[in-house]
C-alpha cells in the first residue's frame, strides 16, 4: 500500500530526427488505496504513462515516486508493482498454480508451502481453485483474465497497474468483471492505476479519473466532477454517451448567437465569460427537454431520427427543417422511452440555462459549467 506521485513526467521518443512527445508534463498524485482510472483516446499516452510507472519505459524528464521514494532509476523488479496486461501475458508452459507462484518465488524468500497456501487462498477468492492445475491454453478468456488478476493479487504489491484488462472480454463478462474488480480493489485496498479507453469503465470504476489527450493531462477529478464540471471541451465531449451537443456561438450583449438560433443568457452566466466572445455552447443530451410551452430557451425543431433504447429514446433534432442534412446543426436529446415522437414531428426543445456549458472556442477552456449542486438538485435527492 502506497502513495504514487508523478511530478512533471515527460516521455519523448526519437523517430529519426524527429522527436515525438508521447507524454507531456503530466503531474498527478494518487492516494494510498485509491483507484485511479486513466482514460483517453488511443495514442493519448495513457499506456506509456502506465509503463513508465511500471519501469518498462524510461522517464525522459520529471520524477516518479512511490511512498516518497524516487524510483526513476529503480528497476521494474524492485518497484514492488504488479501489472495486469491486456493480453493477460500468462506463461503458457506453466500451470495456473505455477503462473501464480512465479512472482512470489522470484521476489520473495517464502518457503514453498507458504507460497502454495497463498496461491490457494487467492485462487479461492477469485473462484478459480478448480483451475489451478490446468494450463492457460485450456482456459476461456474470462478464466485467463482471472488468473492474470490472481497472479497480480497474490503478490500483494504496493501498487496495481492495469492496462485495459477487460477489453478482450465480451460485453456481459466485461460488466461482471468491472463490478468484481471494484469489489476486489475495495477489499484489498491496494493503490491502483487502471488504464482504459472505455469511458463507461472510467465513470463507473474509479475514485478519480485522469483524462489524457495528446500526451497532456486534461483533468483529474472524481467521475461526477469530470462529467458535470469538465475543465475543457475535450473532457466534455469524451465523457458521456451520446456525447455532449456543441454549437459555435458568438456573444452579442447578453445573447449567444448561433447559425440557427439565438440564446439569451442572464448576468451570472455572462459574468463567467469575461472578454471572450467566440464561444462554444455545450448541452448534455439528457439535459434537453421536450416541452409544450414556448419561451426564450425553447426552440422549435424537427425530429430527424429516433433511436429507441427501451428505457430511453435518443432523438436527433434539426433546428431548420429545410436545411440540407449535412449542414444542419443537430441537437441530440435523450428522452423517456415512453415519450413517443416519430420522424418528421415538430417538437419544442428546451435547453435549460442552468445546464449549459460554455467553452472558449480558441482554447477549448471551460468558461462556464453547470454547477454540480444544481445538477444534484434536479434529481431531488
Amino acid at each position: 500500500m502506497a502513495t504514487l506521485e508523478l511530478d512533471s513526467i515527460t516521455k519523448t521518443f526519437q523517430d529519426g530526427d524527429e522527436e515525438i512527445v508521447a507524454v507531456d508534463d503530466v503531474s498527478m498524485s494518487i492516494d494510498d488505496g485509491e483507484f485511479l482510472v486513466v482514460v483517453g483516446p488511443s495514442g493519448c499516452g495513457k499506456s506509456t504513462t502506465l509503463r513508465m510507472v511500471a519501469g518498462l519505459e524510461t522517464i525522459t524528464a520529471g520524477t516518479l515516486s512511490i511512498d516518497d521514494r524516487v524510483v526513476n532509476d529503480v528497476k521494474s523488479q524492485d518497484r514492488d508493482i504488479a501489472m495486469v496486461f491486456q493480453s493477460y501475458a500468462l506463461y503458457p508452459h506453466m500451470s495456473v498454480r505455477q503462473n501464480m507462484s512465479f512472482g512470489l518465488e522470484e521476489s520473495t524468500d517464502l518457503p514453498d508451502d507458504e507460497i502454495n497456501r497463498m496461491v490457494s487462498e487467492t485462487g479461492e477468492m477469485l473462484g478459480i481453485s478448480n483451475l489451478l492445475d490446468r494450463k492457460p491454453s485450456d482456459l476461456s478468456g474470462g478464466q485467463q483474465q482471472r488468473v492474470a488478476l490472481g497472479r497480480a493479487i497474490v503478490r500483494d504489491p504496493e501498487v496495481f497497474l492495469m492496462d485495459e484488462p477487460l477489453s478482450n472480454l465480451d460485453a456481459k463478462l466485461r460488466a461482471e468483471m468491472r463490478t468484481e474488480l471494484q469489489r476486489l480493489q475495495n477489499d484489498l485496498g491496494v493503490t491502483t492505476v487502471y488504464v482504459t479507453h472505455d469511458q463507461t469503465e472510467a465513470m463507473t470504476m474509479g475514485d478519480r479519473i485522469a483524462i489524457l489527450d495528446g500526451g497532456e493531462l486534461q483533468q483529474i477529478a472524481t467521475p461526477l466532477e469530470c462529467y458535470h464540471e469538465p475543465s475543457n471541451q475535450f473532457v466534455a465531449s469524451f465523457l458521456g454517451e451520446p456525447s455532449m451537443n456543441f454549437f459555435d456561438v458568438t456573444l452579442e450583449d447578453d445573447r449567444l448567437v448561433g447559425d440557427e438560433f439565438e440564446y439569451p443568457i442572464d448576468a451570472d452566466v455572462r459574468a463567467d465569460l469575461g472578454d471572450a466572445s467566440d464561444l462554444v455552447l455545450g448541452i448534455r443530451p439528457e439535459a434537453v427537454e421536450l416541452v409544450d410551452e414556448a419561451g426564450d430557451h425553447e426552440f422549435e425543431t424537427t425530429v430527424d431520427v429516433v433511436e429507441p433504447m427501451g428505457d430511453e429514446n435518443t432523438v436527433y433534432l434539426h433546428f431548420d427543417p429545410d436545411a440540407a442534412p449535412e449542414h444542419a446543426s443537430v441537437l441530440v436529446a435523450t428522452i423517456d422511452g415512453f415519450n413517443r415522437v416519430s420522424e418528421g414531428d415538430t417538437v419544442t426543445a428546451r435547453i435549460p440555462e442552468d445546464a449549459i456549458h460554455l467553452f472558449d472556442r480558441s482554447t477549448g477552456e471551460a468558461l462556464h459549467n453547470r454547477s454540480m449542486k444544481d445538477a444534484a438538485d434536479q434529481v431531488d435527492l
Partner: protein
Amino acid sequence: MSDEELRTDGGGATADTRWNLGGVTIEDAALYLVLAFAAVFYLVPIESGLVTSFKTGTAIIETAPFAPPGPSGFTFEKWQTAIDALLRGMGNSLLYAVPATVISAVVGSITAYGLTIPTWKKSYKAVVLMLIIAGIFIPYQAVLVPLTQFWSQWAQLDQLLSFVWALGISNDYAGIVELVITHVAYGIPICTLLFRTYYKTMSEEMIESARLDGATLRRVYRRIVLPLSGPMFAVVLIYQFTQIWNDLLFTLVLVSTESSPAAPVVLILAGLGTSLEGQDFALRMAGAFFAALPTLAVYIFFGEEFAEGVAA
C-alpha cells in the same frame, strides 16, 4: 443478392465445368497422377540403393538397379562388412557431432536471447547482429587454410592435451576436439539467427510480466524463454546434427586419414568399397544407409517439435 442465390449460382457453375466420375473429378485424377509420378521419381534412387545393398556381386550385374535381387542373389554379407568397417567411425562421429550440436544450439539460444529481449542500444544490437549473420555467408573452403594454420600453429591441442594422451588415449583424438570447436564456431551464426527469429515472435508483455514479477534477466531466460524454446531447439538440433554429421571437408582437413583410430564415419565411408579392382556398389550402398541411420533417428526423435518449430 441474397446468400442463397449466391450459393445456387456457384454450385451450378461447378457442376457444369467438371466431369464427375463417381465423385472423382478429372482434375483430382490428374493431380494424383502427378503426385504419384513425383513420389516415384524421388523414391526410385533410394529404393535402388536399398535393394542394391542386399545384392551379391553377380546379382548386381545381372539385374536392373531398381529390381529386387531374387532369392539366389540375396545377401546380408555387404551390410555385415559395412557395419564392421563403419562402427568405430560411428562412435568417433558421435563423439564430436553430439557435443558440437548441443553446444552451438545452447550458445545460439543465449546469444539470440541477448539480442532480442533485453533493452540496450538498438544501434549496437544491429552491429553485433550484422557481424554474427555475416558468419553464415563465409564458405567452408575460404577458411580451410587459416583453420589448419590455427590448429597447427596457434592452438596446438596435441601438446595442450598431453595429460589426456598420457591416459592411453590416442593423440589422434585431438582432431575430434578440434572438430567440436570448429563446428560450434561455424554453427553459432545460423543457430543465433534461427533462435532470434523465434524469440522475436514471443509475447513482449509476457517477458515484461516476468520482469515485473521480480525475475532477473537470467531467471527470465531460464524459467520462461528456455522452456518455451523447445520447438526451435528441435529445428536447430536436427539441422546442426545433420550438417555436422555429413560434413566431410573439415574432417578431411582436421583428421585426414581413415586409418586413424579417431576417423569419423564420413572418412571411412569415402573409401569404403573402392579398390583398384573397381567399385563394390552393394557395399557402398549398405555403408551409405548405415551411416545415415543416426540422422534419420534424429528426425524421428524430434519430428513433432520440428514441425511445430518450422511452423513458428
